[in-house]
């Protein structure tokens, strides 16, 4: 099956903007890259439920509680579509969860930061989902069909998340002195980690080569990061939030905002597992996964019993 001809055919399909579907031939590297990326994306959605879940029981109004619940539910739903998309590449959800627990599979670094006050819920929606959307909009054109289609669905919901996050920030900036302080505090803590979500500078990005050739990745880290900065700075100014970067300023020549240097030491420290919540997030996932084992076993046992009974009836 695998010969130069099929590889060429595969690349031709990609070069002409065709989608690759689960039953199509694909090089092993392409499959592996996608499994790594899609499962990481799925895990991010699921682990991302934790920092926001941290505020559900303290949501300050009935409306806020419903919006937050619905949003977290969406994230879980995104996790489901993405696990299904990854499953089309020949890996099971159980295996993906094992890889998450063993540390082989990663999730977005951003969720290793804590959600400390109610404005963090605003900041997560506005900045974190805002950054994710920039990346995901670009991924709607990714070459693997199931991933691309999952992105189209996900993008629709993410824009609602971003709006609700911004609404919380705007409301708090329009509120009491304490609320304004909470909002700025959240801004200060989430801004830089949000910029780090786009990954290292293009010159330092290890995975970019094949991913670009295969059109899994459509735009570079720095391009996407700049898009995010350009749209977000103005939104911050509009509600009176200060960007925690003294070097932010509009550059008339480039028609983009210039910004200060990202602290890559922090980025690498958190990726290596030494962020504020890495251990907590993983312990939480493992604990509840293990606690649920008896339920999954019981459901499987019941199913087997039922099938046997049906066979007896038919047999």
């Amino acid at each position, binding site marked *: 099956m695998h010969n130069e001809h099929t590889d060429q055919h595969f690349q031709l399909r990609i070069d002409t903007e065709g989608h690759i579907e689960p039953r199509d031939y694909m090089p092993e590297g392409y499959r592996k890259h996608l499994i790594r990326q899609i499962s990481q994306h799925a895990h991010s959605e699921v682990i991302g439920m934790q920092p926001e879940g941290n505020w559900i029981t303290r949501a300050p109004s009935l409306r806020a509680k*419903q919006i937050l619940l619905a949003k977290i539910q969406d994230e879980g739903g995104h996790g489901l579509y993405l696990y299904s998309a990854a499953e089309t590449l020949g890996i099971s959800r159980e295996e993906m969860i094992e890889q998450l627990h063993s540390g082989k599979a990663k999730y977005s670094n951003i969720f290793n930061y804590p959600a400390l006050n109610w404005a963090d819920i605003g900041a997560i929606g506005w900045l974190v989902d805002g950054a994710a959307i920039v990346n995901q909009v670009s991924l709607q054109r990714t070459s693997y069909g199931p991933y691309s289609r999952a992105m189209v669905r996900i993008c629709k919901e993410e824009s609602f998340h971003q709006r609700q996050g911004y609404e919380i920030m705007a409301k708090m900036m329009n*509120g009491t002195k*304490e609320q304004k302080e909470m909002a700025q505090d959240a801004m200060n803590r989430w801004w830089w980690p949000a910029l780090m979500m786009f990954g290292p500078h293009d010159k330092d990005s290890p995975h970019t080569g094949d991913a670009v050739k295969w059109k899994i990745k459509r735009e570079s880290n720095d391009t996407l990061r700049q898009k995010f900065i350009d749209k977000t700075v103005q939104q911050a100014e509009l509600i009176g939030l200060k960007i925690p970067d003294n070097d932010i300023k509009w550059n008339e020549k480039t028609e983009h905002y210039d910004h200060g240097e990202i602290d890559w030491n922090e980025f690498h420290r958190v990726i290596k597992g030494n962020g504020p919540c890495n251990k907590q997030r993983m312990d939480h996932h493992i604990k509840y996964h293990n606690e649920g084992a*008896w*339920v999954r076993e019981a*459901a499987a*046992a019941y199913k087997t019993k039922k099938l046997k009974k049906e066979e007896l009836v038919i047999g």
Partner: protein
Amino acid sequence: METKNELYKYCLRLGDDALILGHRLSELCSKAPFLEEDLALTNISLDMIGRAQAFLKYASELSDNFITEDDIAYRRPENEYYNHLITEQPNGDFAHTIVRQFFVSVFEYHFFEALTKSKDKSLAAIASKTVKEVKYHMEHATDWVVRLGDGTEESHRRMQIAIEDLWMYTGEFFEMDYVDDILLSAGIAVDKSLIKEKWMKEIIKPLEEATLILPAYTHMQTGSKKGIHTECLGHILSEMQYLQRAYPDAKW
């Protein structure tokens, strides 16, 4: 309206059941045995918070004070909440979560079905919407009762413990006091004595199918109609009311 005070209290009771059990279920976000179930539980929670909002909003309209549904939800002292004691019980293991939901949802299904016939248009309208949601909650819980009861030895054991632990809180469902009586004679409230038999019949069937048995004890806990709760409620409220109490002038 002659029955306004009673109707106000009736709305608080119905709103508080949904508010407190909805809150309990919301605690489970990211903690379910698998992702689909996580979504199912938060979905039920979401239905319940929405229902709480509807009843408490109606209560705020009946009140003589200028208060909102959020004031009612977040600013009352513990002894002015009237949710059934079962709704505030901890999530425990998944068996406890399911058995609690099973007892409550089967009751609520029949209760709200009867309430759709209320002469009070607002109550009847909320009940019509609720009964559709609760039908799903009931099916979800019933399905799990059968699967876990008749699953493994371990799941059976856990389910039987949960039933023993929670059974004592089911007597409250059928209590009637002056509020119920006054509103019942006005054609507004539900006659809960008529629901008891239906409830019992409906819970026995899946329990039998799941080889689970009802406890031998008959003593039932009570108190919520008078605002007397278990120790659980205070902790729920101190968490739920935190921002509203800490920043009383803030709007969220």
